[in-house]
């Protein structure tokens, strides 16, 4: 957090305009188009207690799926913080766990042990009843990442580069929205999840 604030101060000094992202009135849409994009590939991973968790366990519930790693210096803390805000809003709306769930999958299982992930989850106030942090061995994680087109590659300074996406999955296991981490808006995600929950059978037509 201190690092983030220090970075912010530096950026402000450098004259980088920030107002658009601090603006509470950032546009959201009340009637999102949520076409079926693709079938969400099923996976089986383990939570921070070592229990086996499959995506198909979540049938009947809306799921927001993010790929993160705990040592990520930039976008992962951002998305995890926004998911923490979303968790609070889902709870306030009586949707958390029973109708809407959050899943964070580490793309760096070599570094992110179950204990590290647990600590990371706690630092964001994650309620593990409805927001699970998942991992597996690197060999078992790799095909899961590939199925979501979620490659990783090492940058020259040792950081991990990976696509900056979050997936919204409906009650039938279909991907209904893909968000960019850079422009993720948890208020819009809440609206989208509510839209899925209120119309569990609705699928936007192709034309």
């Amino acid at each position: 957090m201190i690092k983030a604030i220090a970075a912010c101060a530096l950026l402000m000094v450098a004259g980088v305009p920030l107002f658009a992202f601090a603006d509470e009135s950032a546009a959201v849409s009340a009637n999102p188009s949520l076409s079926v994009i693709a079938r969400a590939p099923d996976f089986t991973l383990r939570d921070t207690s070592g229990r086996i968790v499959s995506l198909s366990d979540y049938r009947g519930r809306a799921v927001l799926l993010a790929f993160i790693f705990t040592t990520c210096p930039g976008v992962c803390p951002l998305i995890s913080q926004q998911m923490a805000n979303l968790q609070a809003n889902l709870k306030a709306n009586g949707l958390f766990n029973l109708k809407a769930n959050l899943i964070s999958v580490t793309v760096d299982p070599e570094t992110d042990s179950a204990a590290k992930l647990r600590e990371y989850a706690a630092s964001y106030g994650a309620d593990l009843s409805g927001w699970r942090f998942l991992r597996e061995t690197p060999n078992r994680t790799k095909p899961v990442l590939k199925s979501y087109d979620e490659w990783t590659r090492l940058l020259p300074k040792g950081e991990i580069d990976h696509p900056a996406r979050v997936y919204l999955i409906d009650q039938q296991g279909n991907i209904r929205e893909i968000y960019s981490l850079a422009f993720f808006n948890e208020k819009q995600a809440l609206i989208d999840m509510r839209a899925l929950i209120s119309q569990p059978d609705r699928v936007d037509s192709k034309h």
Partner: protein
Amino acid sequence: MRLARYNTLTSVVLACSVAAAFPALQSAAETCISPYIKALKQPEKVMYLWALPATVGEGEDFLAVIDVSLASPTYGKILQKIPVGSSGNEAHHIGFTDDRTKIWAASLNTSRMFIFDVGEDPMSPRLVKVIDNVPQLTGLTGPHTPYAIPGRMLISMASGPDGTGPGGLAEFTNDGRFVASHNATNNPYETVVKPEFNRMITSTWFPQKTWMTPFDKWDPSTWSHPNTLLVWDLKERKILQTLSSDNDAVMLAARWMLKPGARYGYNISSAGNSIWMFKMNDDGTFSYNKAADTGAGCSPADLRQSPDDKYLYLSCFMGSEIQAWDISDPEHIKLHDTIQGVVQPNMMHVTYDGRRLYFTNSAISSIDYSPRYSMQLVQIGPDGRMKLDPNFKIDFTKAPEGPARPHDMLLN
């Protein structure tokens, strides 16, 4: 307690984290590509050029890989050409997927989409998929610009299923599965998104049947509202407002300003020889006004921007000129510099640092008026002034590079 503390600081930290993590939002940024695409953070090493044979139908369209690394012994040379296995496609625009691992290449005449993998080895693209049945899938024809949105490509499609009438937008997954079509009221040319406002603007040109007809037989009466831009709610995929330019038509390239929070941008009218400004008002509606005349006989073909929102670069297809416009006073833009005598300039590409501008000189085969096809480079000074680089020119008039018509470019 922990959560509450985070909540207090959320907006500030989010702003900082985004700005720190995504250089595309800062002043040294690659311009004129989707803001969802992973940004190029270093000088370009390789260029991908989408081109077609000079004599249409005689040979395959191809993606060329060009060495643009200044220190390389093969600087300025075509390293390889990847043919697409078919001819007569009319290679036109290309676009990266959001993760920069694939290039989608659109073909105007056959509506085929070609997907190249550039993630595995950026110096050796591989053709991994061809979508042959785009009109059947989408109900639309004439794909113009492939534009990245998260995990998907949004393609501006000029016309209806038979190559006439209004077109729309076609949405595919990055690996080429059709998702949905969204109807437009005009003939979409290009899509530009400002994510923080959830707003998308599409420009317009003409239907497929027009450009597949000899130029002297073009019939503007068959075009659908060629003087309009459409403002969309991106999340809803819904048209919110139609911006009309009165008499200026063929509204081609459009550019939002890059500064986060900037509510305005510009587009060119090819038939009107003009630059137009669109601006979002406080109430969320848009206003639309002519910003400048480019001069009679220009026929603007492409519009590019500097990373700092200070300059626009405009190619005059008929006027054989590239213009630099000073837009530091957004409502009063002025002609800043020109390069003259460059025949038939068309597509341009500005580098991430705003210091170089590559340009090609083929538009579409039915309107090209000079066979002197080439790619050239303009060096841009910190003051936005331009100088043609005498050390970089790829001649596409003859072998080994041609004869070919070079059109759209991407850098990596």
